[in-house]
């Protein structure tokens, strides 16, 4: 008997990748849109923005050069002082920094001076009373009242110019006084600086200051455009094959489904990398051309060698991004029946990538700690750090980039974390894709399923995984708009946020999707008998309170007081609310309301959608992690995410363990109520000393919290055991 030929593995993967790439290359429109268009887009963008920038710089310099100072004098000695200043203005030498191009002075009566300054016809009005000149020529200090015009365009340079003129006058008076007493002029001039070279114009310096921000924005744009490179080949890879009827020939290929998906991924990844390279080359070439349009001084930072190095470093940082984008696009389009359906599913991907990549622009977000592991945000942050470190070392003064450059070793660790994280995420996504491609319900579902649209589906016991993801996407969108809709006051803002971002999307989905509310939201007693149910609830409360204290201790130890201004503001608002009112409304607002709303949302809808009705252990674990990640992301502030993720894990476990939402609500409320009670009961001195604590919480309180966690977990486990025993019955 003839032995079977070896199939599968890398030969099969490469055969599929080769086939897909040949198909892609022969689609001229796709090649043009994916690879050629970026080469034309950057020059157009750069040309329009550079021309605008150049015009702005020229205007800035023109205004700087044409600076003039108009002063009106009044009072008995006005004429004499104006003459002295006029004589100073005629001397070209010895003018201090900030001296205006021209100085004009008029002597008028006080009423006229008032009118002139009110109309904005002069920059300043100086009242010079009689005896002022005598004071100057004597040994006294002359105090003059100066009023600046409030009607001229707000310009600090008027004040700076006047100060420069008056400094010159003061220097002249000092020298005269020294001469009178026979002392040398060098007595008040111990140091003189003679500058040479050409200091950059102020507009050039201003543009240099914003170059890091421009670079960051370009990196986000590059992340988005790189990801768009994956769109067309990903749509064509699976949904396109389904539409053309060629998917069956791949599904019966003699190799595991993962080999087919990896082959598809290699093709999409290759195109995404090519898109990244095309974009990077276009950016580098555009930047080198850009230097010619900008005044000298800026182009110093844009040497060809540096640009090539920056391009290569960006490629290193973005290889992982290209892999994750390619895998993500494959995953989300794997469930689509047609190219059109796949295009629709990619729209939320664009939003997700834009949001994550844009998060790296937030001040203070750097490629440190766990951030490099976050897809897209981490990639942009790592690229920022790489470029900042490189430009700092290239300039050898650490200042040319304008960014705080990280040590090279720290950046290397960040790059490694980013690459490993990308590899892990890509691998997970490809495994999910293999599951989706081989899913019979997706593969052979009829057109009526695909075209159901917004119609209400048949009733279900719990939502599907897609319905869970849909609610999270809608919740995030609503959360974004809630930030703009919410009033500036803290309390109404909290209520609007919960109503708009949590309750409204949840109510809409629950009505639309016709799920069984009892199953979906686990509306049942947490244990069979009342004593065990009480044990579950008490245990949940202890878990919630303990989690807050332990989480706060870990957060303080991790961040060591380095929290963002937004986090400080949030903490300040909380303390203000709690200390400014009575405790019951504060507990209702900060603990009970979010506990009920967010538990219905995350541990109700999202968890039941991810886990299914009676999940196996593996799916239950994945579901708990998925909803906890969404819960953490919902809390927006990066400092809070690790703690909210851990809380989400515990609340998810509580819900699945007791098959009831009540313990999660109680634990959530206890978690949020703990700081409210602590702040309410603390004295002002306690709060002040707490603010000073940077190393962590007192060990005693942490020990008590750990004890609460242990007792709480034991109580819940006790209640869970009784439930398991009951569910085994007939």
């Amino acid at each position, binding site marked *: 008997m003839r032995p079977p030929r070896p199939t599968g593995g890398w030969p099969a993967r490469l*055969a599929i990748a080769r086939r897909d790439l040949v198909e892609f290359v022969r689609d001229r429109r796709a090649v043009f849109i994916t690879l050629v268009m970026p080469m034309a887009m950057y020059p157009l963008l750069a040309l329009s923005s550079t021309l605008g920038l150049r015009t702005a710089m020229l205007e800035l310099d023109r205004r700087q050069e044409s600076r003039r100072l108009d002063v009106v004098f009044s009072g008995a000695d006005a004429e004499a002082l104006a003459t002295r200043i006029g004589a100073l203005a005629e001397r070209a030498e010895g003018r201090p920094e900030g001296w205006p191009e021209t100085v004009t002075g008029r002597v008028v009566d006080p009423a006229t001076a008032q009118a002139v300054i009110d109309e904005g016809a002069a920059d300043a009005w100086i009242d010079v009373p009689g005896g002022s000149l005598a004071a100057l020529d004597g040994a006294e200090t002359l105090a003059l009242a100066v009023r600046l015009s409030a009607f001229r365009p707000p310009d600090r340079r008027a004040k700076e110019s006047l100060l420069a003129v008056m400094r010159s006058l003061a220097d002249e008076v000092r020298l005269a006084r020294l001469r009178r007493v026979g002392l040398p002029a060098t007595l008040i001039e111990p140091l003189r600086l003679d500058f040479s070279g050409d200091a950059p114009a102020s507009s050039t310096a201003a543009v240099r200051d914003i170059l890091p921000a421009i670079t960051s924005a370009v990196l986000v744009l590059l992340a988005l455009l790189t990801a768009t490179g994956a769109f067309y080949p990903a749509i064509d890879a699976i949904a396109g094959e389904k539409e*053309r009827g060629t998917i*069956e*020939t791949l599904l*019966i290929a*003699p*190799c595991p489904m993962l080999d087919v998906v990896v082959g598809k991924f290699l093709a999409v990844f290759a195109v995404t990398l090519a898109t990244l390279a095309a974009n990077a080359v276009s950016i580098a070439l555009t930047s080198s051309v850009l230097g010619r349009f900008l005044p000298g001084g800026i182009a110093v930072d844009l040497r060809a060698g540096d640009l090539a190095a920056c391009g290569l470093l960006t490629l290193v940082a973005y290889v992982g991004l290209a892999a994750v984008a390619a895998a993500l696009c494959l995953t989300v389009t794997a469930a689509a029946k047609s190219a059109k359906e796949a295009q629709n599913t990619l729209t939320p991907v664009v939003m997700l990538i834009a949001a994550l990549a844009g998060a790296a622009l937030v001040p203070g977000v750097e490629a440190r700690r766990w951030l490099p592991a976050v897809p897209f945000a981490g990639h942009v942050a790592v690229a920022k750090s790489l470029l900042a470190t490189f430009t700092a070392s290239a300039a050898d003064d650490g200042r040319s980039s304008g960014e705080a450059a990280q040590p090279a070793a720290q950046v290397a660790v960040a790059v490694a974390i980013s690459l490993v994280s990308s590899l892990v995420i890509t691998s997970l996504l490809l495994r999910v894709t293999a599951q989706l491609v081989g899913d*019979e319900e997706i593969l*052979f579902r009829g057109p009526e399923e695909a075209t159901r649209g917004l119609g209400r589906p048949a009733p279900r016991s719990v939502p599907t995984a897609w319905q869970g993801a849909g609610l999270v996407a809608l919740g995030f969108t609503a959360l974004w708009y809630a930030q703009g809709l919410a009033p500036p006051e803290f309390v109404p803002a909290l209520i609007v946020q919960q109503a708009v971002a949590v309750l409204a999307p949840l109510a809409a989905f629950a009505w639309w999707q016709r799920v069984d509310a009892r199953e979906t939201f686990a509306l049942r007693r947490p244990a069979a008998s009342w004593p065990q149910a009480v044990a579950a609830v008490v245990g949940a409360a202890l878990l919630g309170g303990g989690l807050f204290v332990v989480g706060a201790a870990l957060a303080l130890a991790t961040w060591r007081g380095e929290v963002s201004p937004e986090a400080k503001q949030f903490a300040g608002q909380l303390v203000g609310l709690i200390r400014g009112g009575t405790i019951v409304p504060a507990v209702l607002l900060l603990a009970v309301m979010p506990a009920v709303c967010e538990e219905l949302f995350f541990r109700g809808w999202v968890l039941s959608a991810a886990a299914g009705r009676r999940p196996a252990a593996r799916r239950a674990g994945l579901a708990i992690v998925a909803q906890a990640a969404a819960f953490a992301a919902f809390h927006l502030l990066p400092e809070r995410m690790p703690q909210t993720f851990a809380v989400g894990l515990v609340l998810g476990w509580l819900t699945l363990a007791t098959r009831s939402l009540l313990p999660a609500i109680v634990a959530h409320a206890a978690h949020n109520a703990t700081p409210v009670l602590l702040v309410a009961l603390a004295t002002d001195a306690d709060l002040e000393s707490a603010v000073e604590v940077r190393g962590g919480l007192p060990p005693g309180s942490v020990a008590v919290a750990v004890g609460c966690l242990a007792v709480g977990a034991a109580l819940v486990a006790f209640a869970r055991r009784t439930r398991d025993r009951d569910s085994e019955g007939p």
Partner: protein
Amino acid sequence: MIEVRELVKEYRAGGGRAVRAVDGVSFSVADGEMVGLLGGNGAGKTTTMRIVATLLVPTAGVARVAGHDVRTDPIGVRRSLGYVSATTGVPDRLTPREVLDSSGRLHGLDRRLLGGRIAALAESLDLGGFLDRPCGRLSSGQRQRVSLARALVHDPPALVLDEPTSTLDIVGARHLFELLAGLRADGRTILVSTHRLHEIEHRCDRFVVIDAGRIVAAGTRAELVGGRPGGLEEAFFATIAGGAA
């Protein structure tokens, strides 16, 4: 040989309700035999064939191809099987030669062997005139021949063809069945389904009639038709009506 025993396939319909598309189907196709699987739309033919081709996993029962079980050894089944369906397409932007080359590589054929197989298939299926023309510019008959060549590129002992003539005109359909007759003569096992009974009436060795997921009749043409006037088509309608009664 293709062997199907007590095959069951359930789908989940809306609301989680289970629908049995194939309900205890059993039949076999011997080496060198061509069997026609007959039935109306929704009878369970395509589901059965997809299970045999490892595209679907059976809920219960056994399906084997050349001794390989679809559930425990799907890779072995795929090595032994060529599959063509009415919905099977060919990539528009690839040439037939590239389609065959890609499929052959997936089956582990080396370059030398693959070149020989493509040349042989081009001759036997008359692909020579358009072997290097993009598939998008081929007629439906030519595309179906490419599809068949792709199913044969790894020289499988068994073929499953689900309504292979539904997109062909009468000339193309006749040509395809002449090709299948040649393949059967080579000793291949062929399971084929079609709605056009006259096309296979005198070409298949045996027939299996399936209705609502169950086999309602099986046998040679003579056994099914008996003394009934009107041939296989009338026998089929009578069987369906009897099965439904």
